[in-house]
């Protein structure tokens, strides 16, 4: 843009951030929906390559994920850990703490509860007690896994994005070691034998009761974020750390606490996967859900209920593609492509909601700088302090 500015008077296209009063919620919804449509159209390209009619393929995806009871149950099973991790990440993002370590926190939780299952599964302890122990251990392990980067961020301002990322692979590495080492079943199989039935989560309506746990977390997190002192602290820090200090908040402590909580919920996801679905531990227990959850959390703008929708959408694509593969031989990996495109489109569309695009012919000859500052002054009212919050902050805080 800037080299154009050098050559001619006004750049061809110029952008400005919309003031909040200009945001039209209906238009925003329309833009978001059309981004999904665009994504589905783009996603049909790989399907076309395999010689399958995309409309038919999407039909199969929907039918193959929601069409009957078994499909629906499987879709929900896929959705549970994804939604759980997305919920866990919510408070971190609200605080503008980039926790991308859900994958590892989930795995850490899974390891801890597997330990209980292996140690006490064959003992005479009642099932409910073992399950409770597993649950608690998963929470603590996941929490610690989240707390460590939080501690270093609060203490030394260590880059949390990179730290949490590395923590993922340490957890996964430990799981791999356990799988092929101390907990290995028959030598050389690299498989941990299925746990005792006592460690299985009971089924409710055909799906393990993890879905009830996750739904509870949805509600709890909603109230945690909107009704509790903790949620209030997190929201204030996300808006401005200075304001938080002014209000007497201990920013470092809140950061560590929130990271522990976030890790703990990821740990619950690990527990649910181990006790509900896999009944064993392996290094792919997280199966990328921790990463995908980050996009889910972000795209739902940290709203617990919207997270249900988006994680359902991704679970439908994922499950439906398996059916698609079985029926017409389209590779199941089409799910990842379509999800990827969907995420790209939904990420990109926010731009059209938040920024205003002006073309040269629609503007007078005002040079860009003066116009923009005047605009800012107008939008930002006469108070000079108003521009002190960078726009990306405000966007993230919403």
């Amino acid at each position, binding site marked *: 843009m800037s080299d154009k*500015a*050098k050559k001619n*008077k006004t750049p061809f296209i110029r952008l400005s951030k919309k003031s*909040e*009063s200009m945001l039209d919620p209906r238009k925003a919804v329309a833009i978001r929906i059309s981004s999904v449509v665009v994504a589905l159209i783009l996603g049909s390209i790989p399907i076309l390559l395999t010689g399958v009619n995309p409309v038919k393929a999407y039909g199969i995806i929907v039918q193959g994920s929601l069409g009957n009871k078994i499909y629906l149950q499987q879709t929900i099973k896929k959705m549970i850990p994804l939604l759980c991790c997305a919920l866990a990440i919510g408070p971190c993002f609200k605080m503008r703490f980039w926790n991308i370590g859900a994958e590892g926190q989930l795995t850490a939780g899974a390891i801890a509860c597997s330990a209980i299952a292996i140690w006490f599964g064959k003992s005479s302890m009642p099932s409910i007690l073992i399950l409770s122990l597993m649950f608690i251990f998963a929470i603590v392990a996941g929490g610690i896994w989240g707390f460590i980067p939080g501690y270093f961020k609060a203490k030394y301002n260590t880059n949390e994005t990179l730290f949490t990322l590395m923590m993922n692979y340490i957890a996964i590495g430990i799981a791999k070691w356990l799988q092929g080492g101390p907990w290995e079943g028959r030598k050389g199989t690299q498989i941990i034998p299925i746990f005792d039935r006592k460690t299985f989560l009971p089924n409710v309506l055909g799906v393990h009761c993890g879905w009830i746990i996750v739904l509870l977390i949805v509600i709890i997190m909603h109230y945690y974020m909107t*009704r*509790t*002192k*903790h949620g*209030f*602290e997190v*929201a*204030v820090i996300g*808006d*401005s750390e*200075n*304001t938080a*200090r*002014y*209000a*007497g908040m201990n920013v470092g402590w809140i950061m560590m606490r929130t990271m522990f909580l976030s890790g703990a919920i990821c740990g619950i996801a690990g527990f649910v996967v181990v006790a509900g679905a896999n009944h064993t531990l392996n290094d792919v227990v997280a199966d990328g859900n921790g990463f995908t959850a980050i996009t889910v959390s972000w795209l739902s703008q940290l709203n617990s209920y919207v997270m249900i929708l988006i994680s359902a959408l991704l679970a439908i694509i994922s499950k439906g593609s398996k059916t698609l593969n079985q029926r017409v031989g389209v590779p199941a990996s089409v799910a990842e492509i379509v999800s990827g495109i969907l995420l790209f489109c939904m990420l990109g569309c926010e731009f059209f909601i938040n920024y205003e695009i002006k073309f040269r012919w629609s503007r007078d000859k*005002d*040079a860009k*700088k*003066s116009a923009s*500052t*005047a605009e800012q*002054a*107008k939008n930002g*009212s*006469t*108070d*000079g*302090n*108003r521009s*002190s*919050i960078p726009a990306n902050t*405000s966007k993230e*805080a*919403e």
Partner: protein
Amino acid sequence: MQNCAIELKNIRKTFGPVVANDGINLQINRGEILCLLGENGSGKTTLMNMLSGIYQPDGGEIYADGRKVTIRSPHDAFKNGIGMIHQHYHLVDVFTAAQNIILGLDEAMDIGRVNTRVKEICDRYGFGIDPKMKVYDMSVSQKQTVEIVKVLYRGSEILILDEPTAVLTPQETDKLFAVLRNMRRDNKAIVLITHKLAEVMAVSDKVAILRKGRYIATVNTKETSPGELTDMMVGRAVTLNLDRPKYDNPEDKLVVEGLTVVDREGIKKLNNVSFTARTGEILGVAGIAGSGQKELLESISGLYPVKSGSIKFVNTDKTTVELVGKTPTQIKEIGVGMGFVPEDRLGMGLVGSMGMTDNMMLRSWREGRGLFFNRKKPQDLADRVWKKLDVVTPSTEFPVRRMSGGNIQKVLVGREIASHPPVLLTAYAVRGLDINTSYAIYNLLNDQKMGGSAVMYVGEELDVLMELCDRILVLCDGQVSGIVDGRTATKEEIGLLMTTVGGKEA
């Protein structure tokens, strides 16, 4: 005139409803140091930003060497030989001085040649910088030097320096002035934006005075005096008809002794500050921006680390408690009520994305036991503030960021005075507000005072300070240069104190 490098004619600039500059005529000559003098907010920087391509004037003309020019970008400014050294430096920390200097230039990268040329420039004007030094290792004054060399390296003939001495020690200032004199000898045109009279008298040839965005006059430094300049800068005293009710038998409430604070870079922001704030009194704090006002209020409220000195709060039973070393929460816990209206309303005092109710809760969120906060009280308070202070907002849930500046300030002040704190600290409480809102705020402060609070009012408009405050503490460069009686002090007296360190004649 051959000598004239830049001429401004009838320049006007507005930001929305605010007129920043109007009817400005100015001549910048080669071989001369021109000081642009004015109070905070008098439009000095805005005016110069139009020369350096940051802003565009809404009216008037700019002539460079007699040609009419339009300056659309910093790049255009360079082409016209104009280089500006801003208050906030544009430097890449991990680069060396030389690397920063050639950033964005079209010439080939030959660090050896750059180093020689930088050395040439330094020798010519008497700088000392090592081109191989990394910026993060530099002191503030060295960074400033790099910015100046950067401008000279690009062949600028007209240098504009925006308050260059604000961050310098007296020795560094002397050095800078020596350099500026060398540049003058080299027939460069130099504009120095400042509000320090001593500097004006020491270094300039001519002084142009701005007041409230308007051009007042240009005078030769030799033919003027600090007194005359102050007069022109602050203008005639205006009567605002502010109330200043008298409170019977004020008592000491806050006793500050020898307060010294340093910032992260180790620069002293407050130096041995001592004063007493009394009940039933508004203690004004006057001073040029950045003289330590912010640090003073923040250290009293427990937000800024104190290096030495004491801040004592006097209880109603005459016992005292030390506030130094306590966090805001601890101060609250020992029962010291304190209201604080900070300068940065949305960045510190309020949460922009939240509504009035949640912002009221910033002060009470910790109250009550258990995990859940009590929203009833802040809701009531928000309703009360909404009605009592006539805040214009669709609801108490409407994000405060989307309100106008005046309403934002009403929310903030309303919250801070709600509990009638014995100590009320305010920083620039009326900045950017319209007349009506300003008066509403003054009345609120007077109410607090008559209710027996010790109110501190950091302000920038001397007229207001003189009519509102019972006493005025004048800060200059982190030191108290005097405490005067608001009823008897003259504007000139305060203006002079504001520009003289330690109260002595400079």
